């Protein structure tokens, strides 16, 4: 668990065992991969906007679509979550490091080759994998069906194998650390919601990934060793290929058995980090802490038995389809509990509208807009119309793109001081906020409308169909413009990071006056985290609004002593409603 303080540059910053360094390594890698994934998105949008310009070949376009999805889901969002999990968990539970520091380092350095392989797959003959991020066989299994199903797909499978290995190593660490390494007094019911989120997501991920691993291995075998798990005899170029007697649908079942829990693995940590951040900026306890955790458990359990809602129109037995629909829409209930708790946490809040809080509030709105789209897709009858249209694209981008990324940005601005000892610039942060939240919600709501019009996804030239002419085509323009605006917003974010690292305002130990354990360490947190003695916890993580004037809070390890946080003068209190550090409310 604890390890010696590293001395050399390599052991400090390259092959580090320290969970904080590893966490930052994950986050930096996620940012680099996000540049690739985002660049691919811009290429996709540009092709959709101007198919007449002949910029890309159709097979190349499909590889952009495929790799954009793969990179964003696994190598950006999932990796960013791993980064925050690594950084936060030991700090929030009062431990010196993860349970298995060496395994932790290995998990990051297994991820790096996976990233390199994915990027390298663009430069092999045939190009990168092009069967969609879902990689359904036979399209992904037989090279002659699309050029990207040559070497590019083999590389994709290898990259995914490494990713899953890395995730498994990291997941084992998260799980063991949270369960076994909590400091004295930190019962499960006193755990911060962020750590709960990592715990639940980890368990879900560990349970759900194995079927995808086996599907990937079977796909590899079908491609290279002449098995026929998923491939059948087919005719390509008027030539009969005797490939066997397999079942393409088996892959879909295995894929979505992972695929559905995976989206909760992606959404739950950012959502719970948001729930962790909100009390700090409302100065109120989180509403319904226990109810949220129970809801989380129900969501996780249900998420594992509803994968068939991705397959309503495959020709599955209709009774099974009906079951999957009934079960899927039940998930809206615990999700509504989370939504209500998010809202209720704002009741009578003493709002401090710092940048993390702005992102957190946008998360609530995004969950509202995006979550309900799930009902249209989970209800089997309406899914018949919406399956594989832009409605699906809009829905999942609102959830695993917008909700997750807004939550991750909230977390970034919130914990940046603890990571680097400086604060991110507030003004640039606000620019970033507006140029992110507004475009993201706009783009994907508009895509829902295109889906309403029946526009089909993964379409190189939507103008091929007359029914798309009119509103479906017209909506492309605002979406594409917003995509470019979104990109500019992220450039501002990167500029903010560089600037803040160089000459950001130094942050003290606890710039936000937060109660959880990570805020009693220096900023940035040092090796070993907590100094000579580990903290002892005596209360829950959200004891705000205590004390005589209601301005105090109980730090978790404060032994019951109220830390009073109030601004210098009553006047300032008037103006700022209780904020400090010179932030104005305007």
């Amino acid at each position, binding site marked *: 668990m604890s390890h010696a303080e590293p001395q050399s540059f390599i052991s400090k910053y390259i092959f580090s065992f320290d969970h904080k360094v590893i966490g930052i390594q994950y986050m930096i890698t996620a940012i680099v991969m996000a540049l690739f994934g985002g660049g691919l998105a811009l290429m996709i949008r540009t092709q959709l906007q101007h198919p007449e310009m002949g910029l890309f070949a159709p097979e190349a376009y499909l590889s952009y679509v495929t790799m954009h999805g793969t990179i964003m889901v696994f190598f950006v969002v999932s990796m960013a979550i791993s980064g925050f999990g690594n950084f936060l968990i030991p700090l929030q539970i009062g431990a010196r490091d993860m349970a298995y520091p060496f395994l932790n380092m290995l998990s990051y*350095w297994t991820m790096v080759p996976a990233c390199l392989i994915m990027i390298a797959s663009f430069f092999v003959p045939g190009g990168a994998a092009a069967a969609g991020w879902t990689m359904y066989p036979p399209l992904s299994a037989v*090279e*002659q069906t699309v050029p990207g199903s040559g070497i590019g797909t083999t590389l994709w499978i290898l990259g995914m194998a490494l990713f899953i290995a890395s995730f498994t190593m990291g997941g084992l660490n998260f799980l063991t650390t949270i369960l076994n390494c909590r400091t004295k007094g930190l019962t499960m019911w006193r755990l911060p919601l962020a750590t709960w989120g990592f715990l639940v997501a980890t368990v879900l991920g560990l349970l759900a990934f194995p079927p995808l691993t086996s599907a990937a291995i079977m796909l590899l075998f079908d491609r290279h060793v002449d098995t026929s798990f998923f491939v059948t005899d087919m005719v390509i170029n008027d030539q009969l290929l005797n490939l066997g007697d397999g079942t393409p649908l088996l892959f879909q079942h295995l894929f979505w058995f992972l695929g559905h829990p995976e989206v909760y693995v992606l959404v739950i940590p950012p959502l719970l980090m948001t729930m962790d951040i909100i009390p700090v900026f409302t100065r109120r306890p989180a509403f319904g802490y226990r109810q949220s955790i129970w809801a989380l458990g129900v969501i996780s359990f249900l998420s594992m038995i509803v994968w068939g809602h991705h397959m309503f129109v495959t020709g599955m037995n209709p009774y099974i389809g009906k079951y999957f629909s009934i079960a899927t829409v039940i998930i809206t209930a615990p999700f509504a509990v989370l939504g209500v708790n998010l809202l209720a946490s704002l009741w009578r809040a003493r709002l401090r509208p710092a940048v993390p809080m702005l992102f957190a509030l946008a998360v609530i709105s995004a969950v509202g807009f995006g979550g309900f789209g799930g009902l249209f897709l989970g209800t089997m009858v309406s899914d018949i119309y919406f399956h594989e249209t832009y409605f699906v694209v809009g829905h999942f981008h609102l959830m695993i793109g917008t909700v997750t990324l807004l939550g991750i940005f909230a977390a970034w601005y919130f914990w940046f001081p603890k990571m680097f000892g400086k604060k991110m610039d507030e003004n640039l942060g606000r620019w970033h906020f507006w140029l992110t939240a507004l475009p993201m919600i706009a783009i994907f709501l508009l895509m829902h409308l295109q889906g309403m019009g029946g526009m089909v996804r993964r379409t190189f030239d939507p103008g091929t169909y007359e029914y798309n002419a009119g509103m479906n085509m017209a909506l492309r323009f605002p979406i594409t413009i917003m995509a470019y605006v979104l990109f500019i917003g992220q450039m501002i974010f990167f500029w903010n990071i560089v600037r803040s690292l160089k000459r950001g305002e130094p942050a003290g130990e606890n710039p936000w006056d937060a109660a959880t354990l990570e805020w009693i360490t220096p900023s940035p947190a040092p090796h070993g985290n907590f100094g000579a003695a580990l903290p002892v916890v005596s209360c829950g993580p959200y004891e705000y609004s205590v004390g005589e004037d209601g301005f105090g809070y109980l730090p978790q390890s404060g032994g019951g002593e109220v830390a009073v946080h109030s601004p210098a003068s009553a006047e300032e209190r008037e103006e700022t409603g209780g904020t400090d550090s010179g932030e104005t409310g305007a």
Partner: protein
Amino acid sequence: MFRYFLMLLLLTFAVACGGSDKPAPKTSGGDSAAVDEDDEDDTGISVRQTYSADKGTAGVKGTIKFEGKARRRPIDMGSEKYCENCYGEDGPPKSESVVVGENGELANVFVHITSGLKNWKFQKGTGEVHIDQIKCMYVPHVTGVQVGQTLKIANSDSVMHNIHASDKSGDDWFNQGQPNKGDVFTREVGGSDAGFYTMKCDVHGWMAAYICVVKNPFFAVSGTDGAFSLDKLPAGTYTVEAWHEKYGKKTQQVTVKDGETAEISFTFSK
């Protein structure tokens, strides 16, 4: 230290395993100026002369016939309005699988020499060979290419075609989308590309063409008159092969002397 070594090993392993198991798609090969001819019974070390046109004064010519009735259905282009609109009242063309003239002349037969040239070295082919996609048909239907020539396939239609070529065993040679009028696919044909390929457009399934890549310059495609002619042959004994897309191969032996042109014929039937 051991831990770092372990990590390095893992890294190397991971990167090294990125290679492919499938044979790489055929690329243009051969840097040498001279190319061996594809003689089946080449016994190896012999002093070969370099062929040039003035050394070949013999020839083989003939006619190819088809016995029996061959139906040519009109092509249904209903899946693409653009293609239908290219044709007026006469309607779309008929299927090109078996093109038989009034007197049984069989067109689109690829004729080439499969043995007898082992004493000759041939320069790589030069120049371009064009296949066009016009009015949703490939022109020409059967094309011969010598190794070294540049194959150019153009899309002269204002609709997306893809050119998807594969060999006899079903492996892809190339597969490329050409969404725009004016798109040209260029390929320098190399020695490892030798063979017969079926090329189809997947979007317009009636479109089919055949590309026959050979290593020597003696090949021809029979026209609608069924006639073919192989010129500038050096004297010798040769096996001439005629290949039809539906009815397969037929071979004949022929011996020619300098200045002579032999006449042979092939007859295909169902």
